[in-house]
């Protein structure tokens, strides 16, 4: 086991604990011995250059990929998700960088994908479209400014509207950990502000939030703890209160060795 990078001052129990996670795609070593932790009620940021492996790590946590080696502990137990379904069951919701929307389905169908509300009729279960549409309208209106009709297909939405839909979906269902991979990249000022409010609210409600962002101002503003990745490795962690934007940048670029 490699030396674990500076873990920051521990405050309270650990919700997610990655230990020496490695993953290769063919000859591409996307993750090399990545170890990091995060705590409930905190916002944890994950930063790093393009191609550093952030999204790949997220996909390991949310069950899309399975690490080649290493262990991931969630809520006390080791997890071996066989599918994203397992991760969602366990209480991990994710906004993927590619959004993971189905373009040909409507906004409300995407919001409730694999979480559909049904009405039971004996052994049969039929979709309760009305209920889902009504709930969807609520969910979307908290976040988006130019509210897309929940009945329109995602294919017709603008870049930011799509991102808003993906965020609504991840936060609209109770979960222990919400992971957001560059959630505000395509968002306008107002939407960004609302998403940041939402993140803070999630934290206040006791959820853990893991956010990936290239916007260091945002990272410094929101997070309690920052982990830095470089070229597939987790090269350091800091309590946000105890670091500066400059230090993080230096870690990201490799100007500062750990």
């Amino acid at each position, binding site marked *: 086991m490699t030396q674990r990078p500076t873990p920051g001052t521990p405050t309270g129990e650990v919700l997610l604990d990655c230990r020496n996670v490695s993953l290769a795609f063919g000859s591409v070593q996307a993750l090399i011995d990545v170890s990091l932790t995060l705590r409930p009620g905190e916002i944890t940021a994950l930063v790093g250059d393009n191609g550093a492996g952030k999204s790949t790590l997220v996909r390991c946590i949310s069950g899309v990929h399975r690490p080649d080696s290493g262990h991931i502990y969630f809520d006390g137990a080791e997890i071996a998700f066989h599918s994203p379904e397992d991760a969602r069951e366990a209480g991990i919701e994710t906004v993927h960088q590619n959004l993971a929307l*189905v373009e040909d389905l409507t906004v409300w169908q995407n919001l409730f*994908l694999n979480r559909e509300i049904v009405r039971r009729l004996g052994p049969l279960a039929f979709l309760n479209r009305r209920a889902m549409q009504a709930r969807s309208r609520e969910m979307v209106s908290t976040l988006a400014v130019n509210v897309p*009709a929940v009945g329109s297909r995602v294919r017709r939405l603008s870049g930011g509207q799509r991102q808003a839909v993906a965020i609504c979906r991840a936060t609209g269902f109770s979960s222990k950990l919400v992971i957001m991979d560059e959630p505000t990249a395509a968002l306008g000022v107002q939407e960004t502000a609302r998403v940041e409010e939402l993140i803070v609210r999630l934290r206040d409600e006791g959820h853990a939030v893991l956010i990936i962002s290239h916007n260091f101002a945002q990272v410094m503003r929101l997070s309690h703890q920052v982990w830095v990745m470089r070229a597939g490795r987790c090269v350091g962690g800091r309590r946000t209160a105890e670091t500066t934007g400059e230090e993080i940048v230096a870690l990201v670029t490799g100007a500062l060795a750990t």
Partner: protein
Amino acid sequence: MANTTLTAGEGQAWPARLKDASFWAEWAALVGLIVLVIVFQALNPTFLSMGNISSMLVAAAILIILAVGQTFVIATAGIDLSIASVMTLGAVVFGQAYAAGLGLAPACLLAVLGAGAAGALNGLIIAWGRIADFIVTLGMLSAASGLALILSDGKPVTIIDPKLLKLSTGGVGIFGWSFVIAVVVAVAAHVALFHTRFGTHLFATGGAPESATAMGISTRRIKLAVYLISGLLAGLSAILLVARIGAAEPAANTAFLLNSVAAVVLGGVSLFGGRGTVIGPFFGALLLVALVNGLTLLGVSQFYQPLAVGIVVVLAALLMRFQQ
């Protein structure tokens, strides 16, 4: 106002819908059918006689059921090339079971189960072996017809059963029983696609498999399910086929394969998956049957029929473009 500019969707008004390309794609088969009916009726008044309508509907029943099965598969961006030969296999299983004295109901059950098993095998290999749908079902096309030949020893079994005869000749009003069954299948399929979780997951699997997977949908199970459904419906078609011709034959039935896909595509379902209706393929199947019926009624020479069929199929598809 962006808010008002985005009110497309559920509550959409009719005039707006008529401008929508996908609306026309879905209804092109019906429009084409209506045009065809008008033309044929003008040229030969027998076309819309009760007798002829009734016989067209019965003739369309098998194709409708196969097209519904094919719709499930195509909506997941797959294709079932084995659908017709699995039907043949089902028919042969039926024939052998019946000839062995098992009785009508067990024979029917075995036919459906046998065809369903072939479908499930397709699904298993496609989902777990991750091999292209086209290749797996092409293999099954060959394997199922081989199996049908082996089981039947290449010989047809004549089946004379009063209940089966009733199935193929009786009905309510002008609607023969087999057409009634086809309608029931279509309605059930519509409900499954648009009013159950399964349906939503199916379209998600077809439209964006990676997104569906990321949302925890088991695309494998969906794939397995659609091929199973397609197989079961091929088995049901097999029963109707045996009832119709009064025999279980190991014939190739290739025409049913191409026609089932044609009905689906004419019905506005994209071969790239993720979208689709049942009503479209339903009318697509009727269109194809009415076309051949009309041409025969008009006495169009056998040499000119394929040309006419080809032209009308393309024209029907063009409809959805020019109506915009």
